[in-house]
């Protein structure tokens, strides 16, 4: 059986599940950030799969351009998230997500 787009999509789905679980279940905000990175990469694998095995009427490499923009956005997101975590750590002395519950009534 040759490797096709279904293989890449299943791999992408597995990675996405792992990322969702980490985002929901971990207490440390930095670990949650790492789980978000896993989810970005799951999407990128799917996009590369579509570029490689799918059919695009616009350009065969459109999926790769999308993946490139996802990497760019992820870099910006990580920079901002790290700045916010440092700020939260300075104000509250912790980055455990369940202790940063100021908005809770």
């Amino acid at each position, binding site marked *: 059986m040759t490797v096709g787009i279904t293989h890449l999509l299943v791999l992408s789905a597995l990675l996405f599940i792992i990322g969702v679980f980490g985002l929901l*279940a971990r*207490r440390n905000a930095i670990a949650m950030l*790492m789980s978000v990175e896993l989810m970005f990469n799951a999407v990128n694998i799917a996009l590369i799969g579509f570029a490689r095995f799918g059919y695009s009427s616009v350009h065969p490499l459109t999926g790769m351009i999308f993946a490139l923009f996802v990497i760019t956005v992820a870099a910006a997101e990580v920079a901002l998230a790290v700045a916010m975590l440092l700020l939260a750590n300075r104000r509250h002395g912790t980055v455990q997500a369940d202790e940063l519950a100021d908005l809770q009534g």
Partner: protein
Amino acid sequence: MTINPVAFYIIATLIVGSAAAVVVVRNIVHAAFSLIACLFFIGVLYLAVGADFLAAAQILIYAGAIPVLIIFAIMLTRGSMTRAGSGFIGLWPLAGLVSLGVGAVILGVVAVSRDVWRHGTYPQDLLDSGTTATVGRILLTRYALPFEVASVLLLAALIGAIVLARRDEQEAAMERTDAERREREERARRRREDRARARAARPGTVATLDDDAEET
């Protein structure tokens, strides 16, 4: 050019295994290193499916730059390295259930729609020469506007990160007055101790702190 199934399964196992380690491992530094391994293996996968430019970008940015930021965040936040207790919230079985549901939806969509889209493959010249030249060309022609928007986004994120991470003036002033008050108290305390010691050294007097009350 087809992908070797054995190679694909080995790479996929490594990716899923290291991703699971990122989520499950309790020590956050180990999780960060596992994340580096996972992102590197994904770059290898890109190489295996013939996305050479993306593989380079993945390893440079994702396996190189982003983990550096994350490890800096781990270093600079107190207590996240030596935190006792489980790394999971109490409701983690519910989180597992939700993620399984999400996965069921995704896999269901994949199973239902696998015959809907048209299958294709790279044109032969892309397989022969690699994708870098073509990616560069269409990035600066057809996708020039998103490219410029992405640069504005990066600039905005850079400025935002600096604004967030730098101490604002009110905070700095508060810390300054705090430090001054601490210093004043320290000086007063030392003076008091000196006087008490001097009085204790004088015979016939009883060392007392009562008459220093105006200093506090």
